[in-house]
């Protein structure tokens, strides 16, 4: 199978030939030298800070609609000194909503990643550590989950759980479970034959200690890369689910995906209402993608020196 062959090649390619500590330090050094990674880290930094300090940065409450009297159908006040990004059709400050939207996006991304990665890692460890029929069973299950395109899978899960932010997070998490499981399992299988595993085994160290103290930490680098990229995808996917009406049922929630969706109705009269949340999504997702891709390159032994 094609996917397994790629698994095997990445597994052998990333088997560290030097102690992992130096690999990590070297990777970090290359990371800060890479302009792509620096831009990505700045974007992530801004995004996270905005999310955390949203109440301090935003001039108004995201649900405050006291400027409704300034709105006429088809005419929405553009940027001004009081309202940096203008007012939306429901009389709310767009800038404040974008700022608070960062919170929702970060929350969705982090929770979806955490849930998906934990479940995926657990399955991957199960398959990679035990091998044999456990491995076959887990991997068949993973194959089945991967046989539905990711977005469609997320839609199905979210539709089943009903309209809420929680169901969006769970839906995105579920889609990521098989990806993490397959990644970690392939990596662990690659480590299995390594000399240090043989050495540990000949010293009489128990299987669980070998798995958790030796193999797992050594298999973890691609998981970190995947995690960073998953955060980016989660932000984009959450917007897509919101567009399909599967996100929070509360229309006043400041959420980029929903703001973008609502902007469709006023696209001809106020296209900027779509541009702001759209750009916010792109910049946040781009930050994580840039760092993830740079990290992958920095950790790849092929790009060493």
């Amino acid at each position, binding site marked *: 199978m094609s996917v397994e062959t790629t698994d095997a090649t990445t597994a052998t390619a990333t088997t560290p030939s030097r102690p992992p500590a130096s690999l990590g330090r070297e990777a970090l050094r290359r990371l800060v030298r890479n302009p792509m990674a620096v831009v990505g880290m700045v974007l992530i930094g801004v995004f996270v800070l905005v999310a955390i300090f949203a109440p301090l940065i935003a001039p108004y409450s995201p649900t405050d609609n006291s400027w409704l009297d300034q709105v006429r159908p088809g005419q929405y006040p553009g940027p001004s000194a009081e309202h940096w990004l203008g007012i939306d059709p429901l009389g709310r400050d767009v800038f404040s909503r974008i700022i608070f939207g960062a919170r929702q996006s970060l929350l969705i991304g982090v929770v979806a990643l955490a849930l998906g990665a934990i479940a995926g890692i657990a399955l991957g460890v199960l398959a990679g550590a035990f091998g044999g029929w456990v491995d076959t069973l887990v991997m068949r299950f993973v194959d089945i989950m991967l*046989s539905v395109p990711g977005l469609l899978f997320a839609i199905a899960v979210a539709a089943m759980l009903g309209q809420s932010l929680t169901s969006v997070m769970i839906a995105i998490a579920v889609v990521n479970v098989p990806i993490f499981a397959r990644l970690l399992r392939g990596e662990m299988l690659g480590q299995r034959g390594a000399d240090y595993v043989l050495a540990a085994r000949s010293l009489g160290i128990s299987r669980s200690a070998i798995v958790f103290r030796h193999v797992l930490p050594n298999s973890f680098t691609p998981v970190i890369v995947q995690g960073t990229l998953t955060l980016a995808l989660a932000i984009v996917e959450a917007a897509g689910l919101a*567009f399909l*009406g599967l996100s929070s049922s509360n229309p006043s929630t400041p959420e980029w995906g929903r703001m973008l969706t609502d902007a469709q109705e006023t696209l001809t009269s106020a296209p900027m209402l*779509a541009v702001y949340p759209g750009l916010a999504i792109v910049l946040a997702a781009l930050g994580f993608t840039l760092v993830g891709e740079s990290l992958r390159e920095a950790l790849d032994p092929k790009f060493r020196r």
Partner: protein
Amino acid sequence: MLRFIVRRLALLVPILLGLSVLLFAWVRALPGGPAYALLGERATPEAIAAIESQLGLDRPLWEQYLQFLGRAVRLDFGASIQTGQPVTEEMLRRFPATIELALAALLIAVAVGIPLGYLAARRYGTWIDNLAVTGSLLGVTIPIFFLAYMLKYVFAVELGWLPTAGRADPRARADHPTGFYVLDGIVTGNLDASWDAIQHLILPALALSSIPLAVIVRITRASVLNVVNEDYVRTAEAKGLLPGTITRRHVLKNAMLPVTTVIGLQLGVLLAGAVLTEKVFAFSGVGQFMADGLVQRDFPTIQGFILVIAIVYVVINMIVDLVYGLLDPRVRVS
């Protein structure tokens, strides 16, 4: 080779069975249970009781599953809550639109992606390479429907070059024997209708192609970079082959292997992505029907859509694997 094909086909069975179990569990987990999901929110208790005994919901679980499987094999998903028509009929009517859209998007992605990826690898480190890499990173981070809005606003609303929505000019009269509008125009000798359909396809196809385009550029670039450094390319250079011959016979032929896999995988992604694109452009394919179905909690439609797309996806994957085996003898042996 025959053994390889049989082995690959045999792998399909457990996956499809597993998929059906997953879908069965999904239907049972729907809010209110399958009867409620089938009949919609306005169902009376009597109707629910009737459909429950008709569906055999009082029977043991394994029997219910077998029944479900029997209906799924016959592609019988019940009637759509939106239109009251059988889901299968609705889907068949709308599928040509979505396939046309997905193929148009794939065509753009392949026609632009492969040359761009190849060029980026050959000019490694130059501005073309940087542009291709940055562009492909942007391509995966832009939400499809945001890109669709922007294309629609700039090219349809502001510049007025292309239509804003739909599959064809509603004022035009045209026959549609196949449902593929571009093809219909050619078949019926109505080339104006074909041109009209193409104009309606351009913007949605561009929006939908963003992700596959980005992926194809990256894979082509990485793959060409890998192959160029292989021993057999050095050997070919050493024995004095012309650069053009090396490119055609050794570099491209080998570099395209991973690209074919990715193109196959992207078709499934395109069909799923059509849900978003078709909604923006009111492009009346299965994607739009599915998107509307989500809003109206039309579970028979959602269920049918998921199963059909998943089967298409699984079958495409299998075909890709088989083609891969044909192209690369190394795969057959392993």
